[in-house]
């Protein structure tokens, strides 16, 4: 069986879903086991069409649920080959059991997560609830803010995940609809260049090496379980970030596009900063520039690598900032937001005297407007001037009804 290469223009107009599907095609995946769910469905559909048109040489297993999708990916990855899939929201939630299993078994699988809210109430639009749900699952989590980044980060994900020192599955996140269904210009690679970057899959502990039988997915109880979990955590803490940096560097050399573990925009002389993820980063960047015209030295920090958590890079990025806002696009349901907590955790033992406040926004695809961010930066400047947080530590932005604020 053979497959055809696809001629691409240097710049194509793609939405995030199609960009991810194209990257999956160019990575020459051996097995995709998938199940459709809004808004990630077009990734799966796109890949199916590539297959139907002879642009892919691999197995496409259209399973009966997301749980089965990841189960099939685990079986295929353990057998020994390149594996990827895509999902969102409820499908991601159904997958959760298998997310822990795939990472614990140290199987490199790339999962495109098109972020969407979690029911109830049911909602198909983008927020970060599913991304947050995955944060303790032992996966690497990369966040794309645009179709270009969704394309690029897929290649980076394969290269990091499949490295023999890493061997951990990797999610590539993008915002549902805002990125996944918004067409933008995407600079492309030729098929050969793209595959050349990702490289051939190098099997490890593969079940299909029939002369070296292996057992995957053992039972460990109190005498072994802790050591295995510790090993996985250790590798996430010590091996993944250097590898990501190495791959980012190689990618920059190839494409000229530079990625950072923590993205900093207008941060060099900033007094106040917004820390956020996804498409909000681009909105915040625009507003930050405008705030500078009003004399507020505003900056933006985007989290590119959510897991492993960029503890040192966060401290470095925020060390001179006077007031910080953590923007969480997921209902914390009875706690401060995750980003608020994790920024606080990073800065607590440092010399930072920053006033840290948290904002919950954008649930279920509610827009984060520039006006919201203008108000927010003004609150941050007031905090910076006062040297303390003048507002409640947790505020909701853009929700109807009486103002919601806690802590």
């Amino acid at each position: 069986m053979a497959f055809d290469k696809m001629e691409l223009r240097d710049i194509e107009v793609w939405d995030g879903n199609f960009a991810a599907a194209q990257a999956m095609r160019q990575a020459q995946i051996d097995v995709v086991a998938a199940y459709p769910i809004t808004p990630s469905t077009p990734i799966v559909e796109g890949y199916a069409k590539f297959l139907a048109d002879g642009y892919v040489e691999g197995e496409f297993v259209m399973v009966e649920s997301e749980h089965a999708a990841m189960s099939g990916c685990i079986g295929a990855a353990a057998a020994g080959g390149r594996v990827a899939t895509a999902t969102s929201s409820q499908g991601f939630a159904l997958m959760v059991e298998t997310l822990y299993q795939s990472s614990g078994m140290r199987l490199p699988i790339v999962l495109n997560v098109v972020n969407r809210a979690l029911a109830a109430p049911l909602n198909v639009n983008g927020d970060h609830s599913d991304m947050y749900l995955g944060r303790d699952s032992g996966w690497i989590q990369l966040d794309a803010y645009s179709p270009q980044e969704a394309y690029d980060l897929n290649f980076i994900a394969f290269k990091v995940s499949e490295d023999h020192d890493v061997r951990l599955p990797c999610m590539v996140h993008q915002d549902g609809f805002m990125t996944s269904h918004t067409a933008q210009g995407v600079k492309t690679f030729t098929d050969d260049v793209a595959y050349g970057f990702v490289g051939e899959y190098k099997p490890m502990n593969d079940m299909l090496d029939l002369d070296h039988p292996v057992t995957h997915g053992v039972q460990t109880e109190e005498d072994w379980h802790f050591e295995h979990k510790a090993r996985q955590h250790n590798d996430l803490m010590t091996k993944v970030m250097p590898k990501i940096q190495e791959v980012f560097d190689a990618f920059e050399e190839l494409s000229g596009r530079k990625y950072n573990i923590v993205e900093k925009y207008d941060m060099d002389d900033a007094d106040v900063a917004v820390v956020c993820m996804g498409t909000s980063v681009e909105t915040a960047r625009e507003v930050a520039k405008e705030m500078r015209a009003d004399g507020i030295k505003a900056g933006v920090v985007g989290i590119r690598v959510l897991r492993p958590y960029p503890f040192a890079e966060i401290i470095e990025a925020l060390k001179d900032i006077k007031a910080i806002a953590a923007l969480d696009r997921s209902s914390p349901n009875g706690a401060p937001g995750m980003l608020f907590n994790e920024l606080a955790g990073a800065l607590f033992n440092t010399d930072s005297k920053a006033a840290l406040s948290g904002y919950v926004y954008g649930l279920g695809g509610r827009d984060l407007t520039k006006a919201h961010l203008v108000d927010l930066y003004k609150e941050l400047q007031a905090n910076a001037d006062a040297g303390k947080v003048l507002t409640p530590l947790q505020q909701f932005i853009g929700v109807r009804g009486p103002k919601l604020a806690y802590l």
Partner: protein
Amino acid sequence: MENNGWNEFEIGAMLRSFDGAATNIATTHTEDRNYSNSNSFTASVADWRIEKPLFNKDYCIDCQFCWIYCPDMSIISRDKKMIGVDMDHCKGCGICVEVCPTNPKSLLMYAEQQDEDVALAEWPEKETKEK
């Protein structure tokens, strides 16, 4: 395997059945296999037994019922002959004795401490059916 620390084993809690390449395992008997020390073959469940089966080859007709029905791969058969019981892996369930069709049986259960020579010397006589 000793209780290694967190940095002393293969990632993913993966285990190998053999050391090195193992081709044609389906036709290679235990004595010719290069088991890894994580293969349970290298372990023993002998201490599970309260009673043990003893084998008297004088009465055995090599029917292999004991071989096929042993749940613990503990009936050692080579070249179509039953040659003994693997006492490291036998759990003492007693199925082999139950399915043994000879008269007297060529496998019988004894207390774990039973001396084999004594048992063989005192092996029961052929039972005559009561009419």
